[in-house]
């Protein structure tokens, strides 16, 4: 075995050991397994996995593998990035990167090792999804179980997605401008653009052109095949309703044609190009390019923007005087006040965003406020409050904070109130406008504000990382914007169609997340 190969294997091995020993691995596997349960519904409920021309596809191995494989590829294409985009950061935070930089390991070996470490972990997630699908097939299947059919469909469908996700995660981490929270948010837009390009490609008739390279989730070959096979364009994949009066159609196999393989293999060009860029951009832990003392790199775009906007913090001075006469008292209220100001001082971007969105919210018409401004506000809030809990852990501030009165027993409450105030700074003006014009949407926005607050605190506390919060919220927002006929996703009043049940559901989720965060916090205090 060559020395170079041995080094790559060692990097992959350590990545794998590290990831599989974390509780988050178990949580991820459980989430995927339980999601499969929901996307393969019992047919008697009037819902099905694949709907074709208003009827349903019989639960054969090919149909279930295709449906769940599609879910897996969509899940990994977005969430997979957030799951694996921490491997270079870990080497920075532990300063192990400095040790690695002083070894003979080459930049290419390091990047390739990290890439395959990511691939291996995401493949494990894929295997969990596939196994869960087979289990669901045993429960709800309507034909013989064919494990090789599952394996074949998952392989050609999901592995290119895994390769893309693993490569782009490394590329974003290797390039200081794209690392950190800015990169996390930017990736969401990259992902949405790629999905959009797949749709354009599909509209073009799925001809093999440059857009085929962008079809990372494999929508084009699947939908194309189903359209050709069943001679219809009315196709829906994922738990969806169907007409029970129509006889089910049968999908026994998906032939592995040259065109299909060509389309999927062509999407590997993008990961290869990304890996090449990662190799070029990799900083090799050079301290002139990477800052080791804090969690963010010096050249992170968000950090740069905040540095540029630092003078905006002067706008806070008049507000800082409010209640300052009593600020010497160590009350929880004063602690909240301090935390809110700290958050805004750390993120002048948020101050500007609050002002800009307030002006826009007052000047646009109500429909534009719904459909355009509220989603933009949600994205700005996600950026502003994503680290409200995690920053204390990363900076090693917890023990220091605990020496302040009230904070140790009421840490979660403290953080919740602080985060809610920040969120309300963004949503108060739209909330007031909606209250007078579309009260139902106003209620959605109010509950949505609570949901974002509790998620920032809850997920931050549970995962000790801001990535799950960013990933889940951006995905939810994407689904909301693309499912205008599904009021269940209208968590911030974009459509104003949410029913009282939906309001109650989101309020309940908010409460549960705060309770979960509190329980986790208490258990940490005990240990």
């Amino acid at each position: 075995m060559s020395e170079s190969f041995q080094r790559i294997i060692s990097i992959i091995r350590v990545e794998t050991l590290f990831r599989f020993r974390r509780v988050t691995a178990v949580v991820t596997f459980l989430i995927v397994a339980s999601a499969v349960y929901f996307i393969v519904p019992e047919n008697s409920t009037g819902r099905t996995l694949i709907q074709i021309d208003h009827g349903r596809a019989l639960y054969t191995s090919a149909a279930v593998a295709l449906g769940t494989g599609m879910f897996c590829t969509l899940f990994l294409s977005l969430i997979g990035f957030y799951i694996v985009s921490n491997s270079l950061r870990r080497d920075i935070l532990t300063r192990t990167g400095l040790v690695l930089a002083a070894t003979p390991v080459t930049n290419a070996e390091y990047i390739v090792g990290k890439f395959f470490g990511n691939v291996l972990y995401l493949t494990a997630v894929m295997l969990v999804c596939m196994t869960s699908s087979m289990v669901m097939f045993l429960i709800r299947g309507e034909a013989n179980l064919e494990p090789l059919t599952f394996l074949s469909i998952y392989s050609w469908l999901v592995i290119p997605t895994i390769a893309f996700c693993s490569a782009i995660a490394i590329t974003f981490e290797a390039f200081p401008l794209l690392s950190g929270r800015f990169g996390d948010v930017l990736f969401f837009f990259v992902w949405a653009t790629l999905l959009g390009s797949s749709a354009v490609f599909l509209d073009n008739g799925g001809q093999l052109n440059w857009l085929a390279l962008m079809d990372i989730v494999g929508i084009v070959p699947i939908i194309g095949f189903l359209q050709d096979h069943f001679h219809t364009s009315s196709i829906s994949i994922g738990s969806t309703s169907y007409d029970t009066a129509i006889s089910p159609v049968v999908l026994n196999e998906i032939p592995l044609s040259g065109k299909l393989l060509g389309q999927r293999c062509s999407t590997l060009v993008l990961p290869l190009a990304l890996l090449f860029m990662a190799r070029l951009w990799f900083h090799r832990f050079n301290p002139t390019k990477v800052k080791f003392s804090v969690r963010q790199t010096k050249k992170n775009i968000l950090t740069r923007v905040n540095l540029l906007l630092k003078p905006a913090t002067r706008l806070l001075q008049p507000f800082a005087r409010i209640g300052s006469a009593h600020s010497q008292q160590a009350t929880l209220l004063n602690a909240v006040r301090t935390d809110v100001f700290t958050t805004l001082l750390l993120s002048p971007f948020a101050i500007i965003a609050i002002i800009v969105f307030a002006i826009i919210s007052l000047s646009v018409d109500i429909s534009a406020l719904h459909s355009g401004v509220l989603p933009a506000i949600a994205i700005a809030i996600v950026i502003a409050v994503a680290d409200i809990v995690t920053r204390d852990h990363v900076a090693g501030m917890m023990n220091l904070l605990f020496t302040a009165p009230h904070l140790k027993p009421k840490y979660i409450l403290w953080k919740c109130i602080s985060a809610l105030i920040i969120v309300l700074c963004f949503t108060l003006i739209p909330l007031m406008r909606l209250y007078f014009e579309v009260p139902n949407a106003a209620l959605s926005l109010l509950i949505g504000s609570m949901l974002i607050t509790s998620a920032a605190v809850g997920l931050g506390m549970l995962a000790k990382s801001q990535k799950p919060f960013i990933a889940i919220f951006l995905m939810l927002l994407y689904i909301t914007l693309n499912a205008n006929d599904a009021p269940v996703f209208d968590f911030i009043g974009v459509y104003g169609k949410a029913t009282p049940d939906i309001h109650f559901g989101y309020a309940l989720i908010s409460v549960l997340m705060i309770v979960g965060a509190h329980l986790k916090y208490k258990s940490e205090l005990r240990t």
Partner: protein
Amino acid sequence: MLDIQHVTKRFKNGVVAVADFSLTLKQGVLGLLGPNGAGKTTLMQMIATITLPTSGTILFHGEDICRSPDVLRRRLGYLPQDFGVYDNLTALEFLSYIAALKGVRNPRKIQELLEIVNLHTEAHRLAGTFSGGTKQRLGIAQALVNDPDIVIVDEPTAGLDPEERVRFRNILSDVGVGKLVILSTHIVSDIEAVATHIAVMNKGQLIASSSPEQLLQMTQGNVWEAIVPSEQFDVVRAQYKTSRAVRRPDGVHVRIVHHEQPLDNASHVEPDLEEAFIFAVNVEKSLHV
């Protein structure tokens, strides 16, 4: 073995961390002393091939390591400041990982090293559960795993308790035989017992380079001891560089580093290395031997 020639490191913001630094090093333990911000870490990072100098060359056995870093990397052990480990790996797994990256294939070597740093009984414990001292011992083990010619350790005793510091120094002194060990610190006692050569840096420049004995000799006659009334102590401390002070019934016994007699009742005393360091940094501008 290592020839540093006119090395300068200027950051993009204009700060010069290391300025025209030249030094030739052979086997032995080099104690690199300097106050915080003197440029020690930047110099060590350049020697460890982690960052490139803005100008100047660093030669290892005649080869320019800025052009061919792998020549040195194969023979280098590096323990950075504030060294951390992957919490979810055991000591053995972590050491095996670094060994593999350095091309070491002998598992017995890893076991030997664990014994040398007294970690063999904790080899299967997760590194996240280790104390600061134990982590540093793992750190020195990873630095030595490829039997390097050059070992660079940056502020290795920061945060360690006195017992761990002594233990760390002993390990370094034992394993450093036949190698060039560069030990950077601002704590003089760390290198007092082990250094065969001392280089003092201040504001990016090399201001002294000699053996410990020569450094002491150069400081001879510049260290004074005086008894100062308690109420005058603050004035004396503000006026002169004091190396230590002990309160006794007859007043404060204070040691002062100064090139001429600072107080009427001051008398010469034998300098120690800490005082030589203070003398080099604050009084004498150039002490090269």
